[in-house]
């Protein structure tokens, strides 16, 4: 799989809790191709957020290997890691917790442009307007405080901030779970549009199988720290093999149109 953008092999991670060791990941393997969305789905506590944090190097694994853009991702450190981080961005569930509450929208978007020296200072304001427009907000949002925005608007700014880095992969950890249904639908549309335009790859982490199915090319089902099933979206949803996948499918609420 030399064409893979991201390739994780045998990732293991356990947490120490009250003297006991709790296994969060055991021998997890996954690959993501350029421009592809991998949906990562599972119940609360299955290890999917831990996996997202290990892949983005927010937490180190005990063992295993990650290759990203042809490099040994776990071997990077210091300045080399900071530079490379631009290519893998993350969007979190709670957009309020993901921002400095005192920041303005422009401030939050200027940081990555400055840190990674992507746009010269004179052009930054124009680039910020462009980014806002790209996520469906108008340029006058730039002056607003993060606190003034609604949850959906904040999540758009979080996506704009990730896009500012011109990444090749964005890890979305329950990024639409806290949003209203109509806002959720619009954010999913936006993610798919951005993928088409920029050739972005996503890892879309969620407990909501219907949302995962709507945006993913492939789905990996996690349970108790392991990927128990993985395949093309339609195959997993139409012909689930594992009990975990069948349980997730059964749990999706169905719209009942006809009721006596």
């Amino acid at each position: 799989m030399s064409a893979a953008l991201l390739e994780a092999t045998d990732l293991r991670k356990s947490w120490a809790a009250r003297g006991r060791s709790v296994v969060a990941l055991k021998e997890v393997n996954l690959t993501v191709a350029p421009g592809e969305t991998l949906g990562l789905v599972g119940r609360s506590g299955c290890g999917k957020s831990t996996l997202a944090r290990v892949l983005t190097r927010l937490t180190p694994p005990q063992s295993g290997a990650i290759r990203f853009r042809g490099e040994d991702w776990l071997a990077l450190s210091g300045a080399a890691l900071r530079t490379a981080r631009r290519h893998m961005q993350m969007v979190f569930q709670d957009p309020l917790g993901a921002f400095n509450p005192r920041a303005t929208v422009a401030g939050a978007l200027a940081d990555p442009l400055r840190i990674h020296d992507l746009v010269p200072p004179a052009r930054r304001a124009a680039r910020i307007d462009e980014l806002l427009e790209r996520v469906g907000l108008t340029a006058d949002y730039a002056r607003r405080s993060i606190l003034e925005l609604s949850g959906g608007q904040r999540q758009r700014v979080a996506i704009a901030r990730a896009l500012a880095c011109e990444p090749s992969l964005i890890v979305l950890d329950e990024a639409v779970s806290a949003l209203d249904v109509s806002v959720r639908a619009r954010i999913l549309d936006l993610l798919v549009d951005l993928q088409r335009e920029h050739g972005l790859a996503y890892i879309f982490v969620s407990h909501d199988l219907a949302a995962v199915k709507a945006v993913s090319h492939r789905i990996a089902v996690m349970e108790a720290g392991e990927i128990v099933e993985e395949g093309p979206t339609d195959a997993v949803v139409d012909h689930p093999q594992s009990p975990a996948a069948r349980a997730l499918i059964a749990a999706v609420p169905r719209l009942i149109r006809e009721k006596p």
Partner: protein
Amino acid sequence: MTVLCDIRQLAIRYPHAKAPSLDHVSLTLQAGERLAVIGESGSGKSTFARALAGLLPPGVTVSGEIVWPSFAPAPLPGRDLGFVFQDPGASLNPVLTIGEQVAEGAKRHLGLNWKQAFVRAADLLERVRLPEPERLLRAFPHQLSGGQRQRVAIAAAVAARPSILVADEVTSALDQAVQAEIVALLDDLVREEAMTLVFITHDMALASTLADRIAVFAAGRLQEIGPVRQVVGHPQSVAAKTLLEAHIDLETPSLVVGGRP
């Protein structure tokens, strides 16, 4: 059908709010029915639930009427009306045992002593399908998962055998697998105890699964109310149509056409 509650021109405004949270809402709740109240954030659905249960904070301006023909005065929260909140981590008291919190309503309103109330609490924990109820009586909320805590909150809400149960976004903080279990539990409990259910949600599928009628709220106003097949099958209001269009389930076509990037 007997009228359980008649809400007439109910308007509610929180202090310092620019717009009213509820704007002249009128609807009738029938005894024994299951009404889903659906809307997006800020639609007024939770304010409606709180007004119904008499749980509005002090300082709000209320006009209009809530009439309970078979109750005089209004139903007493805890005794006649049980309320389950969205976040059981916040609604359960962290320093009281599960047993104390579930038994309290039974002791206070059913005339039981503590010993009898604890027996009832253990029964209720079993009813909400929690394992080892006897042991759980002595546990504290932080020792349980989110789904287990919500089962405890449901047990506490029905401890005094209320005839009305109001459930405000009770599954929104839970993953879908747990959500399905909680919805099935509510469905059984309401049927077995012949309770009237008011189920607040933002999810059309959950509303259609659990309810007989659906009331759609937007911007503090009641936009539409009717039987499930009417609201889901032939929505009239923009708000109902928007919620249905935004609904995603496994039948929703993939947004990434062709399956390959």
